[in-house]
């Protein structure tokens, strides 16, 4: 029960190279996410009017979450078809719920 024999060297270098490439993309993703966050906060701090600010920050949030799902959580990779389908199902119901609560409980 030791991990010595799971020797790092035995992992073939091609695979390692791939992992590295992948990691680069992840870092770009992260930088973008931070950037989106900064923009969102800046938009609000700048005191932009609500009708412009709200859609804008919502779009930023959606894009950022897309990055999380597709890169950090690998939804872009193969073998994720069923999970992706079900996540989209969940998002669909989520949109219905949020839309309802925002509109038809208006009094």
């Amino acid at each position, binding site marked *: 029960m030791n991990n010595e024999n799971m020797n790092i060297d035995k992992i073939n270098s091609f695979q390692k190279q791939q992992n590295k490439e992948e990691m680069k993309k992840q870092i770009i993703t992260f930088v973008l996410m931070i950037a989106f966050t900064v923009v969102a906060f800046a938009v609000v701090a700048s005191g932009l009017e609500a009708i412009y600010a709200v859609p804008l920050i919502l779009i930023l949030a959606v894009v950022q979450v897309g990055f999380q799902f597709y890169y950090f959580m690998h939804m872009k990779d193969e073998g994720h078809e*069923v999970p992706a389908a*079900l996540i989209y*199902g*969940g998002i*669909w*119901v989520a949109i*219905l*719920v949020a839309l*309802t*609560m925002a*509109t*038809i*409980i208006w009094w």
Partner: protein
Amino acid sequence: MSIATTQKKGFGAVLWDYLTTVDHKKIGNMYIAAGAFFFLIGGLEALIIRIQLIKPENDFISAGLYNEMITMHGTTMIFFAATPILIGFMNAIMPLQIGARDVAFPFLNSLGFWLFFFGGVLLNLSWIFGGGAPDAGWTSYAPLSLQSPGHGVDFYVMGLQLSGAGTLMGGINFIVTIVTMRAPGMTYMRMPLFTWTTFVTSILILFAFPALTVGLFLLMFDRMFGSAFFDVALGGNAIIWQHLFWIFGHPEVYILILPAFGIFSEIIPAFSKKRLFGYTSMVFATFLIAFLGFMVWAHHMFTVGLGPVANAIFAVATMAIAVPTGIKIFNWLATMWGGSITINSAMLWALAFIPSFTIGGMTGVMLGAASADYQYHDTYFVVAHFHYVIVGGVVFGIFAATHYWYPKMFGRILHEGLGKLSFWLFFIGFHLTFFIQHFLGLMGMPRRYWVFLENQGLDTGNLISTIGAFLMGLGTIVVLINVVYTAVKGKKVSGDPWDARTLEWAIPSPPPEYNFKQLPLVRGLDPLWIEKTEGKGKMTPAEPVVDIHMPNGSIYPFIMTIGFFIASIGFIFQVDNNVWLLAVYFGMALALGTMVVRSLKDDHGYHIHKEDLEREAD
């Protein structure tokens, strides 16, 4: 029921076996047995309701008790009878149908069962310890549910929360099982319809139950911790509860009916000796129903005052569900057309389902016309509608499945004569009870009425309805007698007594604990039928005989459930006295502690060795 299969062991050993089992077949049996028990309780409550309504201004039970009765009847029937019995059949049959040895998460499966069971027990304890059962209707609308005295509604909240968590686990388990554990050659489009409906139902569970969970949390916080979600004085809004409840509630009715559709899609081809007509469109229709099912919930709220735009949208969306459901009805008819139909008790239930459910579905569409629903809503017309779909659809489906799969599950066949007798009693009673209720509703009888007044033209209808309910009760008793009789004296059968089509019939009855000695190779839809007509009459194995890996049984799910059960009781009573917080802490510690132990202890399961397998006869 299942004692028969484990005769030789002592009672203690059998009990321990069932407390610790992770075998999907035994869990399935337990779901069905527990669900049947709750069905009897719910049915008894229904009879009490009907006795109270046998004549005008009756005082058989008091007003408060009446409200408790309808609430418990609805809640018990939906959450603790119909849903679990269907999940039981999914557990018992679906893995066999896809040629799997097990489900993906045997441990979770057991946990799910115990959570459901203790949820039901908790709910029913409210009769004794709650200062009265919940009395705000199964829909528990706020603010009535906030105002309800005693602890009844608290028991409702915690009981449903427990069982809801269990159901959610079951749902995830089935989805993963179907995605990953199909036998070689069992592509998606070769899966039997019951497996398909299990799959889609599980997806519905996955997306619908969280809404209920949230609703229950809000109600719990308002009742127990002084929050203000539904408290108008502090800016709360009671309509939120209605939305959350129905976002869950409408998909829930399809959670009930889709498995029943699956059951009929197995039985009708089997006894017509014909393959299911329009298989692809059946699968497609199932998805369409599920999809539309999430977009119609506000049809329960047409009179809430959401405004004409919302009412119009939801009205049209609701009616649209008639289309995929119609596809199904006509496909079943077309399956029988040109077939060679055998009518036995399983098929009788399936045949009775078609016109009965069609009536219920059609009144559903009538309810969907919002401007007409202003008249129907909260009247006996609605009660008639949903009993037509639920009893005429779901309960008939459950009885059909019982007659169809009983031989597979227990190796004995139910008595035909008793089967037919119970069918006719129940069938006649059902139409007597509920058909007349359409008119009662239109004649001005609202639902949830403890008494109806004299001289309002409602007497005869209610009397007929009550008589019908007793016939249904007799029918149910005959089914019980049949099951007991069969368990003791029933005829033993082979693996394939019906000359049926799908994989579960390719293995012995009852199936061995590993289901398939060798995983079968599936060559098309209705694999067993294919082998019977074009092959050697039995499945070709897809692998040599090898060691079979099996999960270990475990008592942890039971202990964890007990922990949550104790904590729930603590939550309920801490409102009166802080000492009960101890129960919360203790219960949570027990549950979470068990969880930690379970995750820290490696459990690799065990193997049934090849040699032992080979020794066993086919």
